[in-house]
């Protein structure tokens, strides 16, 4: 475990207010989920999970096919698909388009994928204004922090923190009533929506057979982001794919319930391309950026591939006894909780934070609540084994490095080198036969014998090169 990981965990554990905030928020989400998936509320819950798992498995195992189908359908409806291997390529695309269209102001809806590639920072670095519009994300952006939880980004902040932030950053009188704080944000952000040149969203699902982006939300900021500006860009991980719109009858039932205990979130948008002839409003341009950023790295492994089934509901965070103590910011990357513990090492490499797969009690609560049945504890175990293997490799490398360092040291000390040479020559067999062939019998066994039988060193010369040089 890195010092940084350890320090963050201890800071969180020592903060009583934060402990209470995490505990209450996760308990609430956890209980609401349990109510809405209980057998009397949703009798076919287990069947839905099985179906969701089967559909995701099929899609991931044929991902190239569905990506191409998706691309064809987006283009058939007048949209455009762009592939990006990393954050730089995402930013380059957005910057290029913004420059071309003379865009200055971007409104953004909540997206873990854009958090992953630090899109706001990259855009702002190039002089664009990029505003988060989900209330929690907006607060987080004003505070220059990362989201604390996949579905509740500002979980760790109180109304008083928000009051301080708004006063400082928005120049408004201090306001501690939550309804009024929300009204302030609505007013500020409404102006941004109406003035924005580009709207950037994430995607909860990509529907291959429709070329559609599906987005779920409660506030209405996603609808505004994708309807008010003339350009809509959706940025999504390649794994968000599902084959058909009809599969949503399964996934939407699971997502709202697992995330926040809602039958459906307030808004579900199914968007396929720019506005069409006859439609009064909606964007004129529609782009979908398909991001790799490490995802293809975990495709070859049949066991760990299932990590890509995740629909980012956050249920595993709320169920996890570790997350509920150490919170979201202790985790080394944007994804926290059990799902963060399995995808971070795979996207970033296990050495990013070797302690991460071990920060789990393997109690299995995450797998129990996962709507797509990802066997998180199993993947954690495999990652632990990967970390250990990497450590062994590292140790072996260290031994090798040590040997070469000793050799280099010897080579840069001529006197010692000469003495070592003499010492070696004195150990040569007196009869002038091969050194290696004279290896004592007890060591000359098995595969070693075969190796030794074909190799040897020339007999030691009477005088070394150095001696001859001195006497020339």
């Amino acid at each position, binding site marked *: 475990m890195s010092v940084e990981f350890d320090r963050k965990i201890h800071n969180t554990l020592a903060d009583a207010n934060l402990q209470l*905030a995490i505990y209450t928020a996760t308990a609430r989400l956890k209980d609401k989920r349990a109510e809405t998936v209980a057998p009397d509320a949703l009798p076919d819950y287990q*069947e839905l999970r099985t*179906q969701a798992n089967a559909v995701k498995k*099929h*899609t991931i195992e*044929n*991902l*190239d*096919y569905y*990506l*191409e189908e998706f691309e064809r*359908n987006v283009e058939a*409806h007048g949209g455009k698909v762009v*592939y*990006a*291997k990393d954050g730089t390529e995402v930013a380059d695309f957005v910057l290029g388009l913004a420059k071309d269209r003379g865009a200055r102001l971007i409104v953004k809806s909540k997206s873990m994928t854009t958090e992953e590639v630090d899109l706001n920072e990259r855009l702002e670095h190039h002089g664009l204004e990029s505003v988060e519009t989900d*209330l*929690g994300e907006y607060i987080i952006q004003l505070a220059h922090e990362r989201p604390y939880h996949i579905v509740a980004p*500002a979980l760790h*902040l109180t109304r008083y923190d928000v009051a301080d932030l708004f006063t400082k950053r928005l120049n408004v009188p201090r306001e501690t009533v*939550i*309804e009024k704080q929300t009204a302030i944000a*609505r007013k500020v952000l*409404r102006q941004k929506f*109406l003035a924005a040149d580009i709207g950037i969203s994430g995607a909860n699902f990509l529907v291959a*057979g*429709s*070329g559609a982006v599906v987005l779920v939300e*409660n*506030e*209405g*900021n996603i*609808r*505004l982001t994708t*309807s*008010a500006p003339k350009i809509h860009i959706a940025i999504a991980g390649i794994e968000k794919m599902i084959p*058909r*719109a*009809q*599969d949503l*009858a399964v996934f*939407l039932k699971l997502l709202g319930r697992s995330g926040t205990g809602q*039958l*459906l979130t*307030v*808004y*579900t948008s*199914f968007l*396929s391309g720019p*506005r*069409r002839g006859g*439609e*009064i*409003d*909606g964007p004129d341009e529609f782009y979908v950026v*398909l991001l*790799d950023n490490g995802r*293809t790295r975990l*495709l*070859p492994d049949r066991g760990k591939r299932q990590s890509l089934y995740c629909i980012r509901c956050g249920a595993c965070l709320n169920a996890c006894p570790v997350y509920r103590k150490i919170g979201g910011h202790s985790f080394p990357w944007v994804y926290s909780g059990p799902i963060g513990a399995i995808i971070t090492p795979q996207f970033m490499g296990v050495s990013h934070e070797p302690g991460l797969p071990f920060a789990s009690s393997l109690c299995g609560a995450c797998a129990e609540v996962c709507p797509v049945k990802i066997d998180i504890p199993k993947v954690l175990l495999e990652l632990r084994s990967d970390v250990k293997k990497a450590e062994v490799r590292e140790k072996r490398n260290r031994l090798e490095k040590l040997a070469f360092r000793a050799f280099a040291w010897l080579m840069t000390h001529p006197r010692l080198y000469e003495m070592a040479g003499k010492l070696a020559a004195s150990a040569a067999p007196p009869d002038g036969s091969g050194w290696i062939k004279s290896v004592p019998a007890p060591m000359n066994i098995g595969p070693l014998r075969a190796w030794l039988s074909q190799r040897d060193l020339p007999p030691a010369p009477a005088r070394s090169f150095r001696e001859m040089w001195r006497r020339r």
Partner: protein
Amino acid sequence: MSRDNILHRIRTALGRSAGQAVADPPPARIRVPDVDMEKRIASMFAAIEALAGKTHRAATPADARAFVAAAIEGKSAVASNAPFLVECGIASLPGVRSGITDREELRGLCATADVGITSADYALADTGSLVMIASTNEARLVSLLPPAHIAVVPRARILTGLDELFSVVPNPADVASSMVLITGPSRTADIEQILVRGVHGPGQITVVVVG
């Protein structure tokens, strides 16, 4: 180019080749229950009310008109171009702007109106959702920008739920660029998990079922 690189990496990892066909995905799971209309309406109203939405059952179009007239009294309203609103005489109520097909004009009106009035293509009984499909009749912003939304829906459009919606509209992309489900008023719980309604979308929603 990243497209080809990414697709190549995926194929290599999965042991597939370019253009290789795939087996059929698991059959779609669509289960449409048999629920009679009165039960659908009761279930839909219960779901909407549980989310703090309002409901009204209008026996006739004239009844719907009277209800909406009372609800928007003294307020400014913008109505979508749905033929059903014209049929009910709601589009021609005093104080209601309707028949707008220009994007900028409509946007300006929606940004200042107190109430947005729409119909809905469908409604879902089990979740209390309205299904809005973009068209000349229904613009996206009418149900989004004003602080209150009233939807007037003929009873025949009430489906049992998501499964029936996706059996009636198996691929929404064939129909329009946008299909939105609206389930209750806009809400957030981002500050201290305290529920606040009307953060970006309408904080009040009223569903009127006619017939």
